């Protein structure tokens, strides 16, 4: 029996929780929008990106390529969700 495929909402909640906990300690959750610029806005830096990539790879059993770990594919929560969902 295999685990059910996570939904976009599930991934979204997970990504938001990671960012709020690791990069925006103390911020009100409702302030983090789906299109808040994370990398280009200086919220998620390279170290946080590495941690986030590790988290996503481990949680969802996916592989995120080096060219995907940056502003082009991970600049917003929406981008990250799309990236993960595209690999599931």
């Amino acid at each position, binding site marked *: 029996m295999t685990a059910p495929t996570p939904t976009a909402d599930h991934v979204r909640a997970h990504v938001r929780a990671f960012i709020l906990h*690791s990069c925006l300690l103390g*911020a009100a959750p409702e302030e983090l929008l789906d299109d808040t610029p994370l990398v280009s*806005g*200086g919220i998620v830096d390279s170290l946080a990106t590495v941690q986030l*990539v590790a988290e996503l790879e481990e949680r969802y059993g996916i592989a995120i390529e080096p060219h*995907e770990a940056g502003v082009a594919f991970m600049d917003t929560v929406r981008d990250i969700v799309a990236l993960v969902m595209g690999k599931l």
Partner: protein
Amino acid sequence: MTAAAAPPGVLAGTPRLTGTPHDLRRFLATLLQLAAAVGVAWLFRIESDRRLVPVLALVLGGFAVHAWLPWRWRPWWFLALSLGAIQIVLHPESILPIALIGGALIALCHLPVPYRARVLLVTVAVGALAVLRLRGGGPAFGLLGSMFMFRLFLYLYDLPHEREQVPLAQRLSYFFLLPSAVFPLFPVVDPTTYRRSWYSADASIIHQEGVTWLFHGMVHILCYRLVYYHWTLGPSSVHDVGALAQFVVSGYLLYLQISGMFHIIVGILCLFGHHVPRSHNRYYLASTFSDLWRRINIYWKDFMLKAVFYPIVLRSRSRGTGTIVAATLAVFLTSWMLHSYQWLWFRGTFPVTWQDGLFWCILGLLVALNSVREQRRPRRRAMAGQRPGMRGALSLTLRTIGLFLAMSVLWSLWTSAGIGEWAALWRLDGPHPWRGSGAVAVALVVAVLVGVAAQRVSGRDWTLGRLSRPVSFARSAATTGAGLAALLILGLVPRIWTPSSRPMMVLAALQETRLSEVDRKRQAAGYYEGLLTFELTNTALWDVGAKRRMPGIATTPIWRFTGDFFDSELVPSMSLAWGDGVLHTNRWGMRDRDYSLAKPPATYRIALVGGSEEMGIGVNDDEVAEAVLEENLNRSPVGEQHFEILNFSLFGHFAIQRWMALDRFAWRFQPDAVFFPGHDVDGEGTVGVLATSLRYGKAVPFPWVRDLLARAHLDSTIPLQLGKRRLAAYSDTLLLWAYRQVVSDCRARGVVPVWIFIPSVYETRRPGLGERDEARLAREAGFVVIDLTGVYAEHSAAELRLTPWDPHPNPLAQRLIADAIERRLREPALARGLGLLDGAAPEPRAPIRSARNTRSTEYR
């Protein structure tokens, strides 16, 4: 009325397209601000030598059309505008090679062969082009390099991972990017980011952001000019703590020009829908080295993360501290090499210097240490709306000031002429080395108070990564519009009222694109020092090299080095097409027409011994002031005699060498008068010649000068800038000594010594400042003095100089000089003094208090 909305599925390459129809009012508001921005750029001549103003005019018209085009046509329209910008900036003949070579490189990326083969082919092609560039390829290579030499590899890197169909126009416009034509220092933009950011938010908001970035960019450039024109110092002026602080801090502040350019670039891209990330985000407010790295050139940072950092870290089994440190160091080492690679395309050399290596290694190490610290203690950010406490505000302020000062010092190392020169900067051996300490302390205290107060009053700090509210169009348009209106008013003021007061002159100077006084003098003195190899980046002089259209004369066959203190001379009987003019030498090695050795009967001969201005750098043979003056005097003679003016002027020669030129060349032509031009850089230039000769082990053939060098504790082990600093205190003494040698030699031969002051083209007025020091020295030495101050009074510097970065007199300025000398020679008193009227002998002069007896016999 609305602009066209994106029909679904039209642009498969831009899946995040969320551009929405915008109303006419928003469009007109943006258009109006953009027109104001063009007006500001025109009034302040923002990057005018890069032809930004006509390109912005193109952007204005292009934007007005682009915003209403159907989506599918917009990329093609942007591509057409980009090619139009290249047409504006480059000579037409450069465009076809760029288009053909660029097109071929893109085609190589898409050849139907395996991916590795394509990478190899592109690498070979780029290598071949690099060899051509190293062998002296023209300026088009700079633009070609800017457009292709980084983007091509990023493009190839992303090519196998493309998941969507990319329109051809977007592929092409990624390379032929509109702002690249004006700003070649913007080589790196990520192709995926470029495509995916296209209308990734509301169109009117993106367009408004574009105008806002244009405005910010212009403010940065104006601030840069304020610092550059009024606050920079040359290293030879650093004698005390105050000057040292000013030198170091002002050098780092000059980076404002680069950040201004980046803002303008991002602004232009936003106006055409490319919502690329913000760069140079308040980088002077960074509080750690990592913070600075995240704020400053984020395009470069993202490039390095993508190409170096993530591949190392994510492909590593261990993603621990060691891997992070190794990857970070690899990023900075790669940055070092790639910066040299960038210079290869701009300047045709691949500089590998200790300064570069140290700068990148130190910065890399500091960022790595910061990263390790942050890995263990993640950054905490203040909650939105949380007012910083006093302790937190003070801590952030101190860290910010500390980082700013540390970066200023590191920057001064990077931009120094050498490690020894940089170390010498800190040896303050002036008579009052601690002078300025009080002012520095006060400035630091004020900075701390302002930093704390700004946080407490505004209720927020300046840490990066805050959650911000969505951009409000109305608020952004109002603030940007008001700012642009203020700049327009400031730009108009000096055009309506003639600048007379100091603030008005500062405001007028903001509208100029030129070298600062410090750089102008360094440039003049630097001809001898070889500084125009453009290794210096602390000033705008590096830019001179990038813009220079002609090779340095010292690299051409018409120039040869003598191997002694005299240094160099022209090769006889040669011809050189140089810049826009032609330079001929006669059989005697003068830049002049031919003359017989024996003076013809009834001829008045003048020997002119000057420097680059008198030699006529950048103008044709018949446009040099000497040639114009000779022709005018013979057309309407003073007295009964024919005139011959023999031009012995030599590029990069100052007072002592000009005096030597009399002995080497002039006396055998039996001149009746010697014209010895004076400039405001003569003291600095003479000091530079001596310091450089000493540094490079050339024997100084004059005992009196050698004694002076010994008194100044100078020998060949002293770094160049330190030597210049020490010698600066003797510049008047040296000038007077050289002047006296000239006068003494003239007297011994019955020749009239005439000193002619020729002002800089920037000195169009000199109200109420009295006699200049150089004229006083010349008079004291016994010269007949002709002061041409005010010769340019009816003209602006822009009308008189060769180019914005080359202040040598252009043909108009040369003619004004010739006319002014002619007028003076026709004054009866002066004409009699020179023996031009009625065969009168030169006026007797007082005996010279000469240092002649101290002159070396070694040289004779």
